[in-house]
């Protein structure tokens, strides 16, 4: 059973055909890279997978369940996590509080009105440990709006990973990062266990080819190629798009 199946999915909004007839199937534990020039529809696809955008046609099946019309938070509860192309943190909360929110979501006490936050010691410890494993303990008490861009991107990825998802959608996790930060993020992605299935949008071809099991190429809202690294590297159409676009 494929973990994620996208069947002939399209999105038409305001007269613009953002995606047409895109189909793909991702296997359990696979690292699937989604690449393509700007405007290809990559983030639109992610938005439809996570439920932020409605589907104009087609179906999405996650873990054997049709989630096409399921609201975003239900998909998240099923184990679908995502990060955002435009960093989406909780700006006035501290970095620690940001991570706490991510961890709290799956905790039984998430709707508890009269329990003190401090009683959730296990969550505080887990958040601290998570930040520590990323080397970000130093910024734990800073407001998320005050940290550097690179740190914000990393926290965005942490929030996606914190829920220990079954399927993780990473939207350009390395965008705008310094070389050292890219290495750290790639290392963290690498270290994710194989029971997490990962879809990742990337512009950095080196990173993409380094991490990919299979690659899907989108262009102007259509799927134009799919295959393993060699197949894509040697695909004439793909080369033309990328070389031509330079």
């Amino acid at each position, binding site marked *: 059973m494929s973990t994620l199946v996208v069947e002939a999915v399209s999105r038409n909004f305001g007269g613009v055909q953002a995606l047409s007839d895109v189909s793909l199937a991702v296997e359990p534990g696979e690292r699937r890279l989604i690449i393509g020039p700007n405007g290809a529809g990559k983030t639109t696809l992610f938005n439809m997978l*996570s*439920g*932020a955008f409605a589907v104009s046609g087609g179906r999405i099946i996650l873990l054997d369940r049709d989630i096409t019309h399921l*609201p*975003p*938070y239900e998909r*998240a*509860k099923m184990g679908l*996590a*995502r990060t*955002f192309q435009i960093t*989406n*943190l*909780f*700006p*006035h*909360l*501290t970095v620690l*509080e940001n991570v*706490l*929110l*991510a961890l*709290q*979501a*799956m*905790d039984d*006490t*998430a*709707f*508890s*009105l*009269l*329990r*003190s*936050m*401090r009683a*959730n010691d296990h969550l505080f410890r887990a958040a601290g440990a998570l930040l520590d494993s990323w080397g970000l303990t130093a910024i734990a008490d800073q*407001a998320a709006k005050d940290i550097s861009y690179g740190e914000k991107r990393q926290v965005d990825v942490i*929030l996606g990973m914190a*829920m220990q998802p079954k399927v993780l959608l990473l939207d350009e996790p390395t965008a705008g990062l310094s070389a050292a930060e890219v290495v750290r993020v790639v290392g963290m992605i690498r270290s994710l266990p194989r029971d997490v299935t990962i879809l990742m949008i990337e512009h950095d071809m080196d990173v993409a080819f380094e991490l990919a099991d299979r690659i899907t190429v989108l262009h102007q809202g259509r799927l134009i190629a799919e295959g393993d690294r060699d197949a894509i590297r040697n695909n004439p159409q793909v080369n033309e798009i990328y070389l031509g676009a330079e």
Partner: protein
Amino acid sequence: MTGPLPWRALAAISVVAVSISLALPYLLTPYYLGLVVKMIIFALFAMSFDLLIGYTGMASLGHAAYFGIAAYATGLLALRLEWNVWLALPAGVLIAAITAALFGLLALRARGSYFLMITLALSQVLWGVAFGWRSLTGGEDGLPDVPRPDLGLPWSLADDTPFYYFVVFIVGVGTLLLIRIVSSPFGHALRGIRESETRMLALGYNVWRYKFVAFVLAGTFAGLAGCLYVYLNRYVSPGYVHVVMSAEVLLMVVLGGAGTLFGPAIGAVLFVWLENMISSYTERWLMLLGLVYVLVGMFAPNGLTGLVRDLLNRRTGS
């Protein structure tokens, strides 16, 4: 970081506040004691609104609806049916909660400016009923002669001092509950919703449910304040649910600093004091109120606590 002040500071302030509040009846004249009671009641009202606007980020223009409907309910029950306070007060609060639930179901169908308009429209409809249904509500004249609560204690709440302690106690309990709520995982989630709804959804939170419960809680505590207010004044009128009342509580919250619970309470105290002072000098209260809105909107949208925080940040160079 927004949220209640650090615990130690809060505890210290609480001790001082409690001591002063217990001593006040022996320090003030009945007139000023009554004013302090009004301040405390509006502090509760403002804190209830802070839960909605400061913590969850839902700006509403009709919060007076729950304040007023509870006042009318309790007033009517105490006056017409002669219910005693043990029934009339909870009944008033319950009616406020139910109204908030119904209005919340409607208003939460929308967001942003629609939400603002709908909350205003709903509360004004309530005003229209209060104004128009003379046989029930007394219309424009309101309901006078609502009796003070009779607790069955040796001290009559018709007297200023026992009534003062009664209000302090109830508002104190309400405040402790509110503090508990905002410091809970639920409260933490509300702040997340304020900061980024899309992220909260992506994390798996049923954002609508949180917003709805926050809306109802805010309305419930506003209702509690309303019940106390009708007992204080022994009177209720359509003004309790009018948009001007909603606008006033909005200003109290903004003036004090939204999202701090403590700030809006201070904002309420300040507002009541200013209103009292200014209206003794001029009839142009509404115009001056409008001016304050314009000034706050232009120069201090984060309120006094925001200004203080900015000053502190500038001092420490962060």
